[in-house]
């Protein structure tokens, strides 16, 4: 079966090569049948890769350890759902997932454009198949997921427990969907520039795809931050780590594109900007994919040097060089139709928006690649830390939030003092009110940055609400709809506009959460004995008692032993909540005969965060029951911490199953002893305000994006068409 998988990959590569040739030939010669054959290659690619994915997934589910990738990342003790997800935890598996997603999205794009953009489609198809060819080449010649070892090992290495949580299931496919989706606007941008056609039709198609990429990538970023906060033991959600930045950069650039393309649509301006932005966003997406797996930068993700560094660098160089060439050689087509009338106009605000977003991206890019840059310049590799990033991104982010409130309200072409008064009176009042509140009611006045952000957020919410109100009022004036129907139909008739406004509110809310939680957080790491308590901000946390269990892990993730604590949280003497942090101990890869108990718990440990979230604040706790050190390689037996028992009571001469049974009984005794006589445990305790607003803001952004991307119902369209047809025909008759 693995052979069939290998054949499928070779076939996929052949189909890509054929498709590129057919599409290009058909495009140059004007032969529809060849172009169609090229387009069908995209569908074939998706079909073939689906077969390959299915073969690989079946191998994972069936625990076929003859496949190297299954043996390296899965085991019989890994739960079914995580076995299926283990497929993309390795390089070869993740590459297959990447190219499969690419083929699926490319098929969708090919289907959607089956009757449009006929001159662009041949080139767009070739570009998409070109990406397919690149990745299938890697899979066929460099790192095959179907490599096998015979005889097959009996047991696999197992999925690392840190990856055994629901976010791990979603995070890579979601991020990859975002990254791969960027190839589509790239392909259509290249195609359009090649045939020198950058018109309304191209804008419509490209923008939809760019919006989908933006949405997927945004969800991936927020989910990644959430995973970091809920699963990793440091209590943060963003560390300016290279892999986080790698996803952020294309997202920033595509945000700029989505806004800037509106100006091109309305006024035929900023065409060079837009072509450059969409090409840059996609190139950065490939850079992001490369960063995560290359080992080139010091990051939480990079692990060892990969042999794929050079092909990826070549691809990125080709994309960058090709993009620059196309934009420069087609600059005549990209001439602006109009000029900027005034610096106080919507056009200018959008232009400033572009500049700020590109600036932000530059800061992130510079900081991320600085180790390489400094190595090239000074010979020593040096790194900048989060404080450096924060210093430059925070003011830029503040300007961005302000712009997101100015943009919806400012007039086109030339904002006069009169309409500025009309449009900005309410938002400015809201901002001023927030500043007053900051110094009286809301306790944030100690940080001027937070006050500025909170008032900017108030500004945005007021501005957007004003837009909704005015649009709704206008709708009611021209139709007989009841109030709620008017609101719904108003949004439905202009999903992009109102979806975008909802996104602005979501971003403002998200930044409010980020600002408050990063500035006013209280954190402590200390060791506590049972009965001791400590102050974290305004809260008192008391270590009440220890907990422990064997095998029946409530999170069903396969931990052999879980040790935890019960913390009682009070504020000003009043009970606020209970936190139950824990640590799950997993078995080592191999059970060492004679050291069975230690082997059962000396694999990786995972934090089970004790968390209580509310609107106002999060209470977060992590515990290290056995101190920082974990027994590794059977060198330091955990029970030496708990009781003075050696593992020698289990004779290696006993049959394996009996050894295991006895070991579990011993482990049960050890855990019971731990619960009765708990040693001092190390705790990390955090009280952080408004964290929940970050996730709520993310959700609002998602809903706004979904609204914007939702296709208009065709029934509505034809009804409107009929009405407008009548009106236009009337005037035709009059003229």
């Amino acid at each position, binding site marked *: *079966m693995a*052979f*069939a998988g290998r*054949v*499928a990959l070779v*076939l996929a590569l052949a*189909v890509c090569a*054929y*498709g590129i040739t*057919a599409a290009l030939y*058909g495009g140059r010669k*004007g*032969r*529809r*049948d*060849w172009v*169609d*054959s090229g387009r*069908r*290659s995209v*569908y*074939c690619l998706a*079909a*073939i890769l689906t*077969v390959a994915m299915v073969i690989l997934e079946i191998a994972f589910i069936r625990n076929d350890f003859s496949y190297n990738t299954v043996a390296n990342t899965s085991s019989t003790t890994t739960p079914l759902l995580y076995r299926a997800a283990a497929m993309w935890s390795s390089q070869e598996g993740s590459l297959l997932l990447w190219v499969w997603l690419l083929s699926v999205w490319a098929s969708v794009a090919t289907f959607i454009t089956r*009757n*449009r953009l*006929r001159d662009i489609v041949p080139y767009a198809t070739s570009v998409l198949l070109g990406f397919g060819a690149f990745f299938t080449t890697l899979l066929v010649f460099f790192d095959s997921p179907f490599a096998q070892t015979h005889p097959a090992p009996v047991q696999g290495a197992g999925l690392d427990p840190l990856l055994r949580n629901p976010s791990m299931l979603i995070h890579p496919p979601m991020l990859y969907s975002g990254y791969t989706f960027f190839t589509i606007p790239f392909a259509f941008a290249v195609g359009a520039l090649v045939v020198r056609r950058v018109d*309304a*039709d191209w804008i*419509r198609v490209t923008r939809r795809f760019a919006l989908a990429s933006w949405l997927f990538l945004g969800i991936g970023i927020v989910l990644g931050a959430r995973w970091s906060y809920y699963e990793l033991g440091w209590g943060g959600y963003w560390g300016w780590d290279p892999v986080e930045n790698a996803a952020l950069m294309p997202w920033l650039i595509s945000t700029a594109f989505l806004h800037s393309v509106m100006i091109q649509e*309305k006024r035929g301006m900023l065409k060079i900007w837009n072509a450059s932005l969409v090409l840059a966003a996609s190139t950065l997406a490939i850079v992001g994919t490369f960063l995560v797996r290359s080992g080139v930068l010091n990051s939480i993700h990079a692990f060892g040097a990969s042999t794929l560094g050079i092909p990826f660098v070549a691809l990125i160089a080709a994309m960058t060089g090709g993009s620059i060439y196309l934009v420069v050689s087609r600059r005549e087509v990209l001439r602006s139709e109009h000029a900027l009338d005034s610096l106080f106009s*919507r056009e200018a605000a959008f232009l400033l928006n572009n500049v700020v977003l590109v600036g932000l991206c530059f800061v992130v890019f510079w900081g991320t690649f600085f180790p390489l840059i400094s190595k090239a310049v000074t010979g020593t590799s040096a790194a900048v830390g989060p404080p450096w990033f924060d210093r430059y991104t925070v003011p830029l982010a503040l300007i961005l939030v302000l712009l997101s409130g100015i943009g919806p*309200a*400012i*007039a*086109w*072409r*030339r904002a*006069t003092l009169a*309409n500025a008064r*009309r*449009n900005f009176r309410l938002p400015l009042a809201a901002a001023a009110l927030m500043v007053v509140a900051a110094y009286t009611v809301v306790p944030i006045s100690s940080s001027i940055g937070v006050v500025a952000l909170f008032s900017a957020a108030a500004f945005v919410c007021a501005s957007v609400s004003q*837009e909704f109100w*005015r*649009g709704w009022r*206008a709708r009611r004036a021209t139709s007989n709809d009841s109030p709620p129907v008017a609101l719904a139909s108003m949004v439905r*008739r*202009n999903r992009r*506009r109102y979806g975008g406004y909802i996104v602005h509110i979501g971003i403002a809310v998200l930044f409010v959460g980020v600002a408050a939680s990063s500035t006013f957080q209280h954190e402590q790491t200390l060791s506590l004995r049972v009965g001791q308590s400590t102050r974290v901000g305004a809260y008192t946390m008391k270590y009440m008692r220890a907990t422990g269990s064997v095998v029946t892990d409530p999170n069903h993730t396969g931990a052999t032993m879980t040790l935890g604590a019960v913390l009682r949280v009070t504020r000003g003497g009043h009970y606020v909540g209970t936190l139950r942090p824990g640590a799950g101990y997993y078995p080592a890869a191999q059970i060492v005969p004679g050291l069975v108990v230690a082997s059962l718990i000396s694999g990786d440990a995972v934090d089970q965060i004790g968390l209580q979230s509310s609107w106002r604040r999060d209470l977060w706790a992590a515990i290290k029951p056995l101190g920082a050190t974990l027994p590794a390689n059977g060198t330091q037996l955990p029970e030496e911490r708990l009781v003075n028992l050696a593992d020698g009571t289990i004779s290696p001469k006993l049959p394996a199953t009996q050894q295991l049974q006895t070991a579990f009984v011993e482990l049960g005794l050890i855990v019971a002893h731990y619960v009765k006589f708990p040693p001092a445990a190390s705790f990390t305790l955090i009280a952080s305000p408004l964290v929940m607003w970050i996730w709520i803001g993310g959700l609002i952004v998602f809903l706004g994006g979904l609204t914007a991307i939702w296709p208009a119902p065709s029934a509505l*369209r034809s009804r*409107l*068409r009929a009405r*407008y*047809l009548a009106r*236009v*025909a009337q*005037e*035709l008759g009059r003229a």
Partner: protein
Amino acid sequence: MTALIAALLIGALLGFVLWALSAPFRGRGSAVQPGDSDVRRALESAKGSKYSEIRDNETDYRTGKLSDEDYRALDRQLRAEAVEILRAIDELDTSNPAPSD
């Protein structure tokens, strides 16, 4: 047994690919230039987006982002462009009655 399934699978994939992609070689499918139906579809979609623009323009005006004169000038221009598109569609209909989509 698995070897047989694998062989069948490979055969099926190969057959499918050959069938799907060999149309130009077999002389099937049109080798002609984009026909009138494509032109009509392009015009229809241009008409749809022109109407969106007219509506959007009106919304901008009603929510205070366009001055009276800017709105009226833009509205006139957009409607004129819409009329042109309708004329082009009419011309297409009279010269060769298009099949219903």
